[in-house]
């Protein structure tokens, strides 16, 4: 143990050097950005885009790391328990933040994180098959009231944000529809086109492409109107109190110091204004939606609360009960 002394000394030295620097925190080692989904997916793309655009602003490497599993909860759990030093961030704002913890027990909650920045917002578009007669929300509600439980909606998986959006909507509209989960949004869209389900949720880009081909009706977005498909009404327009979106942003463990969060927020905000970010975001339908860390937190909390309310009031009965 003869190396203990110099090590201690070094530690003390480091502490004295670090102390005055704390006023203006500057990262000294690589920052890990944890993605709870497999490489190549939407969340991963956003993470890699913001990381590559922000790299110029940072003196240390930004490393994107995939920890896929359990609808992103595996990664969320990991970051919630990580050292709150600003060196471990999570891409959050979607299913793992606003949806899953309301459906089942998780090892974390929104309280375990603090927002750093919201990067983008993705509208969710409710669609039906062309020629099904369900060409508007009114038509869907009417059909569902006529034959409760007969209409089926497809989701990207149980407890995911698509599932939650339908639970909130059916609860608001006072209707009963059957939930058929798929392994992701794409198989659900395929099932809709094949006529195996009556309704599902897609991204604005998907909705636009399929609408142009005349295969689907986009009946409503689940928040406000989307710029990409301005003719599609929002559920709020139609008088339903539904405001859910698939957001993507960065969060840090809850106890991360203010100056660290401020530093990160400023740098990422600058990155979002860079040309590299805007060009790619623009051409690839990533709708930038900058929000400060605190506002991002509020947005997540309000969405999460609306899901929790709907579930408490008996929304999505069948699945909610069985999941307990």
């Amino acid at each position, binding site marked *: 143990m003869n190396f203990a002394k110099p090590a201690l000394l070094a530690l003390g030295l480091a502490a004295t050097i670090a102390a005055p620097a704390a006023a203006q925190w500057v990262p000294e080692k690589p920052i890990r950005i944890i993605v709870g989904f497999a490489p*190549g*997916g939407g969340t991963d793309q956003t993470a890699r885009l913001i990381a590559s655009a922000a790299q110029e602003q940072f003196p240390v490497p930004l490393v994107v790391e995939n920890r896929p599993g359990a609808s992103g909860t595996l990664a969320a759990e990991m970051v919630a328990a990580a050292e709150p030093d600003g060196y471990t961030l999570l891409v959050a704002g979607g299913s793992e933040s606003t949806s899953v913890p309301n459906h089942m027990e998780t090892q974390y909650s929104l309280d375990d994180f603090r927002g750093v920045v919201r990067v983008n917002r993705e509208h969710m578009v409710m669609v039906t098959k062309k020629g099904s007669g369900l060409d508007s929300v009114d038509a869907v509600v009417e059909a569902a009231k006529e034959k409760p439980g007969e209409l089926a909606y497809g989701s990207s998986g*149980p407890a995911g944000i698509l599932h939650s959006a339908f639970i909130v909507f059916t609860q608001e509209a006072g209707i009963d529809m059957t939930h058929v989960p798929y392994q992701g949004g794409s198989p659900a869209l395929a099932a809709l*086109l094949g006529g195996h389900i009556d309704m599902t949720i897609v991204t604005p880009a998907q909705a636009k492409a399929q609408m142009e*081909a005349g295969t689907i009706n986009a009946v409503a977005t689940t928040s406000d109107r989307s710029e990409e498909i301005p003719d599609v009404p929002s559920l709020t327009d139609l008088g339903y109190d539904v405001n859910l979106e698939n957001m993507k942003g960065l969060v840090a463990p809850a106890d991360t110091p203010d100056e660290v969060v401020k530093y990160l927020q400023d740098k990422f905000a600058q990155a979002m204004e860079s040309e590299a970010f805007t060009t790619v975001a623009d*051409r690839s339908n990533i709708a930038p939606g900058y929000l400060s860390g605190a506002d991002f937190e509020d947005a997540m909390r309000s969405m999460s609360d609306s899901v929790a309310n709907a579930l408490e009031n008996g929304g999505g009965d069948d699945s909610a009960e069985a999941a307990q």
Partner: protein
Amino acid sequence: MDPMLLALTGLTEPLTLLTLLLSVTIGLIIGAIPGLSVNIAVALAVPLTIFMPTNQAMVMLIGLYGSGIFGGSVSAILLNAPGTPASAATIFDGYPMAQRGLATKALRLSLVASLFGSVFSIALLILLAPQLADFALGFGPVEIASLLFFTFLVIGILSGTSLVKGLFSASIGMVLATVGSDPMLGTPRFTFGSTSLMDGLTYVPLLVGLFAVAEIIEEAARKFSQQTRKFDLSSEDATANRLSLGEIGRCVMPMTRASAIGSCIGILPGIGATIASFLAYADAKRAAGKSGTFGKGDPRGVAVSESANNAVVGATFIPTLALGIPGDAVTAILLGALVLQGVTPGPLIFINSPDVVYTIYFALLASTLLMGLIGYPAVRVLAQTLRIPKIYLMPCVAVICVAGSYVARNNILDVFVMLGAGVLGFVFNRTGVPVAPLLIAFIITPPFEEAVRQALTRSRGSFEPFLTNPVTLSLAAVVVGVVALSMFRRREARTAQ
């Protein structure tokens, strides 16, 4: 300019060609490493493509995808460790061939079969994409469930000689497949409170364990005595390893059937190349009847497995391009990359961005061709691996297996699964229990359960759709026909005695 010409000129740019060459080579290598699958390679390449021109980006990703599947057969044949899950069925005859000193031949045949399957499905893609995609949409939960049940019965042939042992193995596979979240409700099953188990056990570590690790333990138990048996290439019988046109000719029919099976499976959602190659293998084994030496090094076994899994590659592009809905995990990543390029995938891609469609066609064809050009001379070099004494080779394989299993999900649990599967595989081998039924049951159970329960949710618990569905009924008729035929044959054989 004509979009086809535009795509062609874009593709012949030196930088694009160089990208293609590199990505095909890297794909082959990554494919050959057990545990590292093409999915990871393609996904990791996406961020590199963000700032590339579209044709270069597509060429890079497609090059990795196509050649990776062939690469998987290399380690399957040489090391008994499939490089990609899709090459699992290649082991059955590829490894015995290599053990008999026919490694080069098996690899050459695998290459020819891969080319055959790729070209077959690319031709279907170019000629019939919209029609086939519409056909595939008609396959709902009821049809998929029936098809998977049928597949399971057909593959049952692989269970080997003892039905009891086969069923035992399959039931273990089925139980292992139930670990994780319930597909309909999300309720955790057998996870013991661990979030790491919520997605269940994954296929790659299980596969690597059952084959590669089991083989390593087996060799260790034999004290690596195989080093006395020399796989010297100079002593490898060059004439026996030559692949004659006649031999390829004998494989053409089985390969065509296998490619057709692979293409059909490829256009359907959620089934995948692994099941396709098992199904094609079982089909060829059944068709060969007594004339085959399947499982003991029949060249046709390698040919059908590899043509089927490569046929899936082209076929997955059919729904991807015609509907804008990815056919599998890799095409999903590709679509994502296209979106980053500013191309919106959807049914109108043929009208809105025909040059992109042609670029994809040409990239698929060119990467297939290049795979042949690079692969053929590489085969002899690769076969040299077998000259390494097992006492040195096996520890290296073990390290690669551990790394490969971990890297897929960055999850240490997968490494333990791999080790456990290795011990299980070793015990199975020693007690004569076949490993294949376990694997097949493990892959088929989750999509089967999902489809059955989706169908039952939709019908509110009624089995009626299964009894009235034309697909279900015709598949049932085929099963009855096959069973009747085999009973008839058996009786004939008995009377002949």
